[in-house]
């Protein structure tokens, strides 16, 4: 029960690290959505861009997270030590699920609906914003949900480049061989992920059009 005592004794520290962690995740997700969703809309219209965009996003996904953080440190403007670099790396990780689900959602619509929309004299922009996008929303949100859970996990590693967050406890715990410290980082991170999964899942079901 030493773990529980550790939790109660360091409640404020854990709480503030959790908030730091959440801040990292929220900023990274907002940026990833602002890039991923419009880019997904664009590649629906531009097949030439599709392979490149999905390919590049897939490559980022395959780079081990610790290595990606390391690679970014020497890069000017976006690199260095601290939160900014961490956010850049998290955005790159979150991009693929958002981009891919946006694309899949926008293209996976009943062809009869799209045919009718075109035949009724809707312009391509009207079809995109009034038909494709609303019908794709649940699928896009599923991508955001996946990306959020990945980001909450990967963000623990961001502590390695001094970005703070719950990873700080984990790295310290590994160094000091302290299970209590590792759990102080891991348990709140897991709870955050579960909570995000649950809430975004609720939203996704509400947006689903059958």
């Amino acid at each position, binding site marked *: 029960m030493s773990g529980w005592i550790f939790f109660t004794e360091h409640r404020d520290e854990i709480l503030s690290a959790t908030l730091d962690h959440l801040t990292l995740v929220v900023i990274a997700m907002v940026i990833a959505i602002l890039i991923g969703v419009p880019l997904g809309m664009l590649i629906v219209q531009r097949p030439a861009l599709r392979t490149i965009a999905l390919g590049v996003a897939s490559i980022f996904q395959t780079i081990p997270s610790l290595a990606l953080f390391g690679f970014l440190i020497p890069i000017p403007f976006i690199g260095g030590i601290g939160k900014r670099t961490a956010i850049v790396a998290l955005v790159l990780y979150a991009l693929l699920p958002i981009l891919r689900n946006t694309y899949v959602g926008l293209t996976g619509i009943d062809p*009869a*609906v799209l045919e*009718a*929309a075109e*035949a*009724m*004299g*809707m312009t391509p922009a009207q079809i995109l914003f009034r038909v494709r996008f609303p019908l794709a929303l649940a699928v896009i949100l599923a991508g955001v949900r996946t990306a959020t859970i990945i980001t909450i996990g990967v963000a623990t590693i961001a502590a390695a480049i001094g970005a703070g967050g719950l990873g700080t406890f984990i790295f310290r715990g590994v160094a000091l061989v302290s299970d209590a410290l590792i759990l102080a980082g891991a348990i709140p991170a897991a709870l955050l992920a579960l909570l995000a999964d649950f809430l975004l899942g609720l939203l996704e079901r509400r947006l689903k059009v*059958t």
Partner: protein
Amino acid sequence: MRHNFSAWGRGELEWSLPVLRLSIEMKTKTALSAKKNIEFREVSFHINDILKRLIVSGVSLEVPEGETVVLLGRSGSGKTTLLKLINGMLLPTEGEVLIQGRSTRDWDLTRLRRGIGYVIQDAGLFPHYTVAENVALVPNLERWDAARTAARVQEMLQLVGLDPGEFENRHPRELSGGQRQRVGVARALAADPPILLMDEPFGALDPVIRAELQGEFSALARRLGKTIVFVTHDLREALLLASRIVLLEAGRIVANATPQEFLRLDHPEVRAFRSSLNAMPGAPA
């Protein structure tokens, strides 16, 4: 599902005359008075792949105003392609399709399509819109004011035999196949287009509902006086609805006749379709 034949027409006469007159006044510039509403001139269409497969070849056809022309043919005979050449969803590889005297190549396709109603087999209703929103689609695109659109939606639903109070707030998933198809017809007619294109609209319905809708629609079509091009592979449907039957085989027109003449034609493909009637037990030869 309760229905009656007159439901299609109820309310129709009240609006159709003034509205039709108004639309003629407004559209004189677009030559609505042109006698030949739709004209194919030596139209060929092929898919632009390595094989250059011909889908339609050398089709010439005139559809006069107010007629119901049924394009009859087997799967792959090019019926749907002809339909899509009319509203510019496809443009001819060779030849011209003239709508109200103007080639589809010269039309603003958005404008052209808003003047052409379109009904397809799966209805293609927007699942995220209510019935009323689906019917109001083109009026909203055309920026009608809210009151006029709302009134029009009521009229259209009554026209196709759906009680507005019961159905206007439902979503397509809450409708039966036949009801969805009725909404599809209401949506196509909402902005009072002079031309109506229908691609096997009753093909996916069960036989009882199909016969019911065919009967109601044939009464409606006569009443509306619109130029209708109707695609089917069902000769009985063609005989019921058509003022002319155009038979297609492998992308070419092989017969163009009134229903009465059609049954007497001596052409192998006509005989093949006729024998599909005779194959029906109890059907007249």
